[in-house]
């Protein structure tokens, strides 16, 4: 006899199925289209080939855009984490200021990207730094992306610091570690999971961001989403699908790496479980 499944559970499954389909169908279609042999994006697909992948990797413009995206995302992740660690640590230590400051820190998330993009472009459009124009540089885009990535990173990190066992910090001081050494040898390693998540959030936020990048990049510094959009305006070849799939793939890879790292840590801990 088969086990009876309650109606509630069925509703659950149907909902999850529909949700997954809703998310995955467009992605799946795009993925299929990337392998089309056709010159334009259309259905049904007449032949399969890897020619658009070849085109993508043979095209300097696309490669530069992909590289720009990764560079800006890495820069954003670095900036965000460098700022988020002290900020989150400080927030977790001051109960009074926490609620007020948290609202302030989250504010940029609710400012439309168009507004942020235009503001940064107007504000820094004519600024030169050490003889280089700031406008159009990867640094400026990364700084703009940090406006969004930083609040996310802080939000992810703050609970890690807040739940840190104070007696461990005390113990390290008691054993002779100065506050700074204690921070780097005890606090930081113990929030490493939060640290990895926060870095990842910042990285992906930047990788995905399109509007600010559109306002702040020039032809030389444009990112993959920006180039995608510009190409869509001119000619809709399956190369767009290739670019889109590669962008999605890099996001999923970043998540996968973080998850793998997390599993590895869990396993290492379990390996040292008592032998009975």
């Amino acid at each position, binding site marked *: 006899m088969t086990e009876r499944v309650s109606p509630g559970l069925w509703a659950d499954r149907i909902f999850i199925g529909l949700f997954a389909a809703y998310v995955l169908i467009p992605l799946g279609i795009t993925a299929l289209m990337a392998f089309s042999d056709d010159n334009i994006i259309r259905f049904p697909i007449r032949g399969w080939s890897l020619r658009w992948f070849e085109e993508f990797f043979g095209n300097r413009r696309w490669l530069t855009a992909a590289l720009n995206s990764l560079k800006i995302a890495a820069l954003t992740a670095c900036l965000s984490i460098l700022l988020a660690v002290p900020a989150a640590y400080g927030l977790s230590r001051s109960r009074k200021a926490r609620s007020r400051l948290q609202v302030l820190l989250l504010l940029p998330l609710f400012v439309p990207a168009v507004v942020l993009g235009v503001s940064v472009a107007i504000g820094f459009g004519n600024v030169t730094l050490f003889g280089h124009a700031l406008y159009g540089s990867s640094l400026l885009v990364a700084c703009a992306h940090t406006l969004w990535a930083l609040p996310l990173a802080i939000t992810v990190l703050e609970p890690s610091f807040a739940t840190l*066992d104070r*007696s*461990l910090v*005390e*113990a*390290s*001081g*008691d*054993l*002779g*570690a*100065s*506050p700074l*050494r*204690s921070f780097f*040898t*005890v606090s930081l*390693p*113990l929030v*490493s999971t939060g640290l990895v998540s926060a870095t990842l959030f910042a990285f992906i936020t930047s990788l995905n961001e399109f509007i600010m990048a559109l306002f702040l990049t020039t032809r030389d510094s444009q990112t993959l989403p920006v180039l995608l959009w510009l190409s869509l305006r001119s000619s809709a070849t399956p190369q767009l699908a290739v670019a889109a799939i590669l962008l999605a793939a890099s996001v999923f890879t970043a998540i996968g790496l973080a998850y793998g790292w997390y599993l590895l840590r869990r396993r*290492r*801990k379990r390996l*040292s*479980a*008592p032998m009975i």
Partner: protein
Amino acid sequence: MTPRLQLTALRKTYGSFTAVEGTDLTLGEGEFLTLLGPSGCGKTTTLRLIGGMEKPSSGRIEINGKRVDHLPSYKRDTATVFQSGALFPHLTVTENMAYGLKMRGVPSSEIPGRIARMLDVVQMGRFAARYPSGMSGGQRQRVALARAMVVEPSILLFDEPMSALDLKLKLELRSEIRRLHRELGFTAVFVTHDQSEAMTLSDRVVIMNQGRIEQSGAPVETFERPASAFVYSFLGESCQLAIDADAGRDGSLRLANAPGAGRHLLFLRPASLRRVSPGEAPNEADARVAEVEYLGGSYRLHADAPSGRLSLDLSEAPALAPGDGVTIGWDSADATWFPAP
């Protein structure tokens, strides 16, 4: 000789609350001192002041004759065994133990040897490569002990290290600490609310109440010659009779030597009380049986005298029911008097 530790008029207040009120204390080399008292008596605060985890509001702390009360925790030569153990979860047992040695600048060539020796001493050698999550509470506490001892501090501080362990482990670790103190001769301040821990471990017990030291002395001395009513009732079981000039006028209380004028408290240990026939003992009280409890192996009789409740242990079941009259006697030497507050 300079004492290992000297506290002078040490005081700690939190707002209007006084946690430690003008404590003076001297600790000699190799001495094992216990701060004993109920929760909130200031014993843990005193320990944290010594370790530098709290700043004193006023007063002096000297370690080996050097004033340290202005120094942060990491510049003091103390090491603490925390209540939770506070082992670093991301480090192995060996790495946990190496931590303090590295921070104190011990040459790295010496470190492995010192760790190995100390792990042997606490019999945890085969756990060297384990992470704290892979050990039981008792094992973790042993490592915490080893981690504090391996740096060879001037003073070892114990912050109720056994309160989270079950009874069997508690007794085990207790005798372990006693053995280690005998073998290594460290100087220790041990905080506990458990009097049997304090009695078995210490050279000297300091009993604290409401931020003040009530009595300081050898365990036997504090138990047998308590300096205050608080100490008497805190250490061991006690019965307490409130006695004024009128007490016993009706003949229900017959004392060999009555106190002077005014209200007094008469303290007695259940173990020194016995059931007697009237006229048999030098001191006697007539009481009514309130309750007889079976304690497993013996019986405890609770009886209410006009001036208070008396309890005593009997080896055989008394043929008594609640409400029956009974006479309880004791020797004058077993009675302790304190003026009533």
